[in-house]
Structure formats: structure tokens, C-alpha cells
């Protein structure tokens, strides 16, 4: 899939803004994500990166602008939000596994309740997805019995089981102990290699540099700069980008060496 010559446009964000009462969280954001792209959103906390992801899978309503998924405007009136969300995988910072269900049942939940697959087929699919994140042996464990890293991998499997067009990751490793970050990034790296289209909000610069083919630097609800990781990391145009990258590399630099 990766070396397909013509890339299909999967997601198009056009002039999106988001306002809470009278404060803008997102301002005039435009972004295109093609099939197989790995877009990493970076920037200081509270600059709207997570809000942007939430707008994309309609957990938050945009105040202005449009979002298209496979050329369908999903921000249009009368769009069935539940149907749209089926095609967009979301991974949260706090995993948000269903605490009363085992790992397997978590992965099954979307397949049986949303996709209405027959039990046998759903189970096969769910087991396959757990295998994909390396957790077949934890299928019958409850979230409370899993480490944070394992919980997040189950959450990834749960989202993958729906065969989404695009996967959104909202700081997937921020709530993890440092030694557990690696296993989650490893799964994400593998996904990227398999050609999954991904949008990732993260502070893991090693991951961004290695996996992203597009990096977007956001601040105060605006896209300050976007480009390839080569461009942003080595030839940033904006001073703010340079400053941010310098700071964050200093902060996270040492840890990165262990995980990448």
C-alpha cells in the first residue's frame, strides 16, 4: 500500500475553527491527510491538538469550517455521527477501556454491538487484532489486571477491529510509565509500516522523526508550520518551531534514546 503511486485523499480539513464561548481553541485549520500518511501533531499543551482530533471524529462540534472523510462532508447537518465514527479509530490518552470487559470482550464490543458480526466471525477477528498488538495471551484479563502499556495496546486493537479508514491517537503514551512507552510506540510503528493512515498527537519526538511523513506544529489554535520531519526538525522556518523543538528535545531527549 505504501508504494502506491497515486495516493487517495482520506481526510480533508478545511478552515476549521472551534470556539468555546468567546475563546478560539482552533483557528482556521486546514490539513489534508492522504492514504497511508502519518501525520504527527506537535505543540505546547492547550493549543488545540486534542480538540482537533475530537472535531475529526465528531466528539466535538466544529464552530466553523468543514471536514471531509473520503470526500463526504462529515461536519454537514444531518450526517449520522455514529456511522462516521465507525470509520475513524480513536485512541485516548487514558486508554478508556471498558472496565467490566476482558481484553477480548473490549475488542469484541464494536464488532458485535456496532458492526453486528456473527459471534464466531467477531471472535476470530478480535483474536486476530489482539495478536496484532501482541496480547493474545492476555485475552481473558480485565483492564484492572493489565499494565498501562497493555491496556493501551488493547485500546488500539479495539479501534483497529473496526477496520477504520484512519486512526487518531491522542497522546497515547502520555499517561504511561516511561518503561511502558516503548511497547505502545512499537505497535504504532508497525501499524505505520503496514500502511495505516494515522494522525498522532504526541510529545515523542523520536517517534515523530522516524514515522511521520508530515509534521504539524500547532500553537494557540493555529498551525504555525507544517512539513516533512526533515523540514521541521532540521530546517524549521519559524522561530517558535525551533524554540519548541529545542525545548522538547532537551526535556525528552534522554528518554528517547531508550525507546527508539
Amino acid at each position: 500500500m505504501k508504494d502506491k503511486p497515486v495516493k487517495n485523499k482520506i481526510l480533508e480539513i478545511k478552515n476549521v475553527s472551534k470556539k468555546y464561548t468567546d475563546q478560539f481553541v482552533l483557528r482556521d485549520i486546514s490539513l489534508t491527510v492522504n492514504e497511508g500518511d502519518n501525520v504527527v501533531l506537535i505543540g505546547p499543551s492547550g493549543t488545540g491538538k486534542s480538540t482537533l482530533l475530537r472535531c475529526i471524529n465528531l466528539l466535538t462540534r466544529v464552530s466553523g469550517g468543514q471536514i471531509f472523510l473520503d470526500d463526504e462532508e462529515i461536519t454537514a447537518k444531518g450526517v449520522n455521527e455514529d456511522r462516521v465514527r465507525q470509520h475513524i479509530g480513536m485512541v485516548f490518552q487514558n486508554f478508556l477501556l471498558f472496565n467490566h470487559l476482558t481484553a477480548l470482550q473490549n475488542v469484541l464490543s464494536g464488532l458485535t454491538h456496532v458492526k453486528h458480526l456473527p459471534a464466531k466471525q467477531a471472535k476470530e477477528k478480535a483474536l486476530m487484532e489482539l495478536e496484532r498488538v501482541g496480547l493474545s495471551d492476555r485475552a481473558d484479563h480485565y483492564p484492572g489486571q493489565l499494565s498501562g502499556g497493555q491496556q493501551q495496546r488493547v485500546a488500539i486493537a479495539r479501534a483497529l477491529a473496526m477496520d477504520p479508514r484512519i486512526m487518531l491517537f491522542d497522546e497515547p503514551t502520555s499517561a504511561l510509565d516511561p518503561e511502558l512507552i516503548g511497547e505502545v510506540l512499537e505497535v504504532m510503528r508497525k501499524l505505520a509500516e503496514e500502511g495505516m493512515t494515522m494522525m498522532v498527537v504526541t510529545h515523542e519526538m523520536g517517534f515523530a522523526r522516524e514515522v511521520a511523513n508530515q509534521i504539524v506544529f500547532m500553537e494557540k489554535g493555529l498551525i504555525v508550520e507544517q512539513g516533512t520531519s526533515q523540514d521541521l526538525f532540521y530546517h524549521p522556518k519559524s522561530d517558535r518551531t525551533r524554540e519548541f523543538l529545542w525545548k522538547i528535545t532537551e526535556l525528552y531527549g534522554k528518554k528517547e534514546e531508550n525507546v527508539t
Partner: protein
Amino acid sequence: MIEWLQFFRSILPEFYQGMLITIELTVVGLLMGFALGLPAAVARVYGGKFLRWLAIGYIELFRGTPLLVQLFLIYFGLPDFGVTLSRMTAAYLALGLNSGAYQAEYFRSAIQAIGRDQMMAGRALGMTRLQAIFHIILPQALRLVIPAWSNEPVSLLKTTAIAFLIAVPDLMTKAKLIASRTYDPIGTYLAVAVIYLILVFILSEGLKFLERRLRIPGLETV
């Protein structure tokens, strides 16, 4: 003491029917309360304006007035509107409606404790609100609520004694009859107290068993 035990044994068979009625009132009231309370709680948390206010109205009305008043209105008041109910039906209805209002508040607190994040995770998978409520929120809330909710069956079992006031032949009514026949009110009411105590004990143990059976590792810390 030994004298009283002999007395207790002699009147025990007479209590048997009354005990069955008391258990019936408790079970029916509890189930009816559950059937009313759970939707009321869901409506109060997730409902639109109309459903939410309907739920709030029901809950506050029945928690805000004495059960005895409710029972009398149902049994003595409804006939004025052409609805005449048997004693048992009136008792079921009053207990069920009243218990439902209290149960709704137990359920509401558990639903709110589960929080918005679980709902959001369900919605992110493509579930509708209703699907997320049924498959994600309620299975967790109903487990979480057991320790607090366990008050309700115990409290209701004792509250059923109020049915005595419309002459439903429950434990309390039987006790009154026996007391006036044997001229031993203290012995009789002590006996009935012991029976209530035993019933409550059995009920509590059953609820503890239920709690253990439904426990999920890690969920109790939510």
C-alpha cells in the same frame, strides 16, 4: 427466657402466612422499584429536557412525601376517581413507587461515578448513546451500585410493615392479632422483631453473595 422461647415456638406457625406476605411485598416492591428506578435514573442523567424533568418530578414527589400518605392516597383516595384497588395491589403500588424513587437516586450516583469518559469511548467506536448506556454504562454502574443499593431491600423489608395500616395480613398484622389474643404484646412483638431480624440477615447475606459473584477485578477501584 425459656418461657418466651416456648411461647415463640407456639405462635411461630401463625406467623408463617404473614411472613410470606411480607416477603411478597418486599420482592414485588423491590422489583417494581427497580423497573421504575433504573429508567428514571437513566432519564435523569441522559434524558432530554422532558424526560429529565419527568424523572426529577417522579423522584422528588415520592421521596418528598411520607410513604404512609402515599399508601393512603392510593388505597383510600383513588376510589374517588373510580379506581378501587385491593389491599395487596395498593400496598405493592405504594411500596414500588416509593422504592423506585429511592433506587433511582442510588442508580444515578453510580451512573455518574462511571463518568463521561466511558460514554465517550463507546461513542468513539460508533455506538449510539443508547447502545453505550446499555452495553457500557449500565453493566458497570449496576455492579458499582450494589453495596449502596443493598440498603434498599433491607429498608424495604422493614418498611412493608406499614401495610398493616390498610390491614394487609402481613407479619405486623399477624403480630397485632396474636398480641390481642394472647394478652402478651411484649412477647409477641419481640417474636416478630426476631423474625424480621432473621429475614434481614438472610437478605443481607444474599446481597453480599451477589456482590462477590459479580465482582470484576479492578472495577471496584473505579
